[in-house]
């Protein structure tokens, strides 16, 4: 039955031609290649939970009287958006779980993109021929942050409403076109009535579509270039060493999808996120204490806080304060990210094609620069909690703010030199960063001692083995071989004896 179906399709699409090539596609085994998968799978969780939420969410700013089961809100006038979100939370079966999973998955999505990007940066995987894919990835990060912010705004609760107000002010601050941008996006002066409707359709349709298209391009280019790999035995510029797609990698990556889903479900069950029923509906003249955005907007919020109160006044015009930390800073940040592969090539003069990765320590300048710049954003992120820190440490707000102003300049400088030094030290240390192999010492009956290196953790790439050209292998026989009963019972000592000739 399946055979016939496959035959029917194959005779129309010729899937079998080149199919074996696809089955044999090699995926390197290094753990750091998994971070991008986390991003991909949290996006799938986002789509699935997001579709559930669209069935119940009402994107409207119209006021209704809340009459649901949550007593503290009863009789209050709230927007339909807020009302429906409360209903998803308390009335829809599984609604709260889906909401919290969606929010957690969004945080994980952006987080894993950032970590993935750092991995690509520090290992030099952005170099030729992957500059275009680096820029596609940077675009995906921007879209993920944007869409996260839009989604966070949709419930129309007190905290997110304040965020929208700030977003309007930020748009407004752009020279020349800012006021027009703000009025066109919000459908008029703040608050307008169309922003929920518009944010909704941008959040659920427009940006996800662009993300999907760019994801396709990102993965398409990955298949075209094939994976980068670290230097190891048998790894060259013109090959890829690792696990074949089918069945080894498919099993692992499918498992990964379910693991990510499982972890977001556990987070959704036990770690409360965005409890909008506690925040209350958005009322423009109300505001709550300790207003913080989602973590990925933290650096912008921190930048808004530490920016000194400067503005530029021109005859009849002005460049408002908010422009510098919230338009100029991200603008410069992402321009630098986009251009980095070219900037680096300009300085190093290295324009050759690279498929073997750098160890961060071997490129101390790049590593130190990357660490310094990242620490700058990390300090800004910390600065988004000035009020909380002042309260927690029982010091004045003034002290905390001034400290952060100093830290955002001092920390990157210190980090730069420390990271540079660590790179040099690591270069001088043979075997640094490599997994240490323990020795297992056994005492024989006669009282003698014998030491043998313990087994490597299973599943890791074994540097002692020569890679086997996958196209030469009859994989079915190999699998049959692998499923055979071991001839000798395995010792329980955990010692795996590596045959002498491969040691």
């Amino acid at each position, binding site marked *: 039955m399946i055979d016939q179906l496959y035959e029917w399709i194959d005779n129309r699409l010729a899937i079998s031609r080149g199919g074996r090539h696809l089955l044999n596609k090699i995926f390197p085994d290094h753990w750091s290649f998994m971070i991008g998968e986390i991003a991909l799978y949290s996006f799938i969780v986002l789509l699935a939970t997001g579709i559930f939420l669209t069935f119940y969410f009402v994107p409207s700013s119209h006021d209704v009287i809340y009459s649901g089961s949550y007593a503290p809100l009863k009789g209050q006038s709230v927007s339909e958006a807020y009302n429906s979100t409360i209903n998803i939370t308390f009335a829809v079966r599984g609604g709260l779980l889906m909401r919290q999973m969606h929010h957690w998955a969004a945080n994980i999505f952006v987080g894993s993109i950032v970590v993935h990007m750092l991995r690509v940066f520090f290992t030099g995987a952005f170099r030729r021929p992957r500059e275009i894919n680096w820029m596609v990835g940077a675009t995906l990060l921007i879209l993920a942050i944007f869409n996260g912010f839009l989604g966070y705004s949709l419930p129309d609760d007190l905290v997110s409403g304040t965020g929208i107000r700030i977003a*309007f002010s930020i748009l407004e601050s752009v020279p020349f076109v800012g006021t027009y941008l703000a*009025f066109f996006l919000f459908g008029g002066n703040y608050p307008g009535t169309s922003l929920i409707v518009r944010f909704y359709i941008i959040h659920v349709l427009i940006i996800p579509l662009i993300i999907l298209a760019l994801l396709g391009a990102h993965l398409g280019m990955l298949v075209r270039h094939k994976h980068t790999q670290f230097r190891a035995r048998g790894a060259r510029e013109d090959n890829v060493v690792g696990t074949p797609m089918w069945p*080894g990698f498919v099993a*692992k990556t499918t498992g990964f999808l379910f693991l990510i889903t499982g972890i977001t479900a556990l987070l959704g069950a036990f770690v409360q996120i965005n409890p909008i029923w506690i925040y209350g509906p958005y009322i423009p*003249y109300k505001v709550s204490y300790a207003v913080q955005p989602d973590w990925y907007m933290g650096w912008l919020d921190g930048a808004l806080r530490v920016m000194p109160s400067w503005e530029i006044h021109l005859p009849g015009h002005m460049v408002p304060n908010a422009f510098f930390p919230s338009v100029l800073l991200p603008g410069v940040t992402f321009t630098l990210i986009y251009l980095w592969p070219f900037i680096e090539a300009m300085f190093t003069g290295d324009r050759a094609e690279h498929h073997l990765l750098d160890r961060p320590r071997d490129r101390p300048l790049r590593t130190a620069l990357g660490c310094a710049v990242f620490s700058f954003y990390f300090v800004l992120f910390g600065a988004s909690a000035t009020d909380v820190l002042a309260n927690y440490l029982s010091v004045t707000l003034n002290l905390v*703010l001034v400290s952060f102003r100093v830290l955002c300049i001092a920390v990157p400088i210190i980090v730069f030199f420390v990271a540079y030094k660590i790179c040099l030290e690591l270069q001088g240390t043979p075997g640094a960063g490599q997994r240490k192999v323990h020795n297992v010492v056994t005492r024989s009956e006669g009282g003698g001692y014998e030491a043998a290196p313990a087994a490597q953790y299973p599943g890791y790439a074994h540097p002692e083995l020569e890679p086997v050209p996958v196209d030469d292998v009859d994989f079915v*026989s190999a699998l049959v*071989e692998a499923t055979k009963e071991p001839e000798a019972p395995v010792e329980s000592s955990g010692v795996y004896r590596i045959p002498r000739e491969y040691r």
Partner: protein
Amino acid sequence: MIGLDAPQFEVAARNPRRAEKAVLLSFFISLLAFAAFGGAFWVNASNMWLGATLGVGMSAFGYGFVAWGKYLMPRGPFEEPRALMTVEQEERDLIVADFASRGRVAIKRRSMLALMMGAAGAVFGVVAIFPLLRSLGPVPKNALNTTKWRKGSYLTTVDNEHVSVNDVEVGGILTVFPQDDVGGALSQTVLIRLQQSGDIVTEPGRETWGPNGFLAFSKVCTHAGCPVGLYEELTQQLLCPCHQSMFDVRAGAQPIFGPAPRPLAQLPLYVDSSGYLRAQKGFDEPIGPGFWYRGGTT
């Protein structure tokens, strides 16, 4: 060619039996947990039950796959060849030349058609941005420079009550609106009654703006537009909870700390013959955060 007895074809697990058991067990756990999830959903159990059963089920299911792929497959490593992306110049020249000459012939022989096609496309390209400019929203015009506060507007509470001099206790604050825009995001104004009685002068030229110890300021922060909602009576300072700007009320809400660059706009007040607080006129400057067309150098 390497024989199948090479260590590359052994499974990665040290003890395949144990790995098999682990995979089997995790799939079994996921089976139980998925069934429990169904049950929990059916009886509408709490969020924690739903999430815990789904989470454990998915995690165990996933672990089973990962362990199977990681421990029970030939451990490799395997390799496949990779073609470099760098293309030979001749190969490129060939395709570029072909593309260009086909196009040149097709267009040059029919240059009038190409011209007209280009013109039509260009017109549509321009027209296509009209909806963005004409229907997404109104043009700002003067909207950001004015509020609903007018000469004689009553200071009105959110409950639609006009505020009289007796409605605010000494040292207290109240959020007020003009009577025709109660709850308005842009006309929100904070009314403060200071400890001092008599007229409060925050700045020269504002001699009559603060009658009987009352002062009123726009509640929209000049930094990023948050409501400046916190008032410290002791120091007579307003604090914006978003980015911690502080304003000295007595000095005309001058910013004294944080990122806010300009004072909050002050609303000139008077007390009418019935004791109600009213606005002498609207704000004399645009309220809230700055924008390119704001001008002025306050």
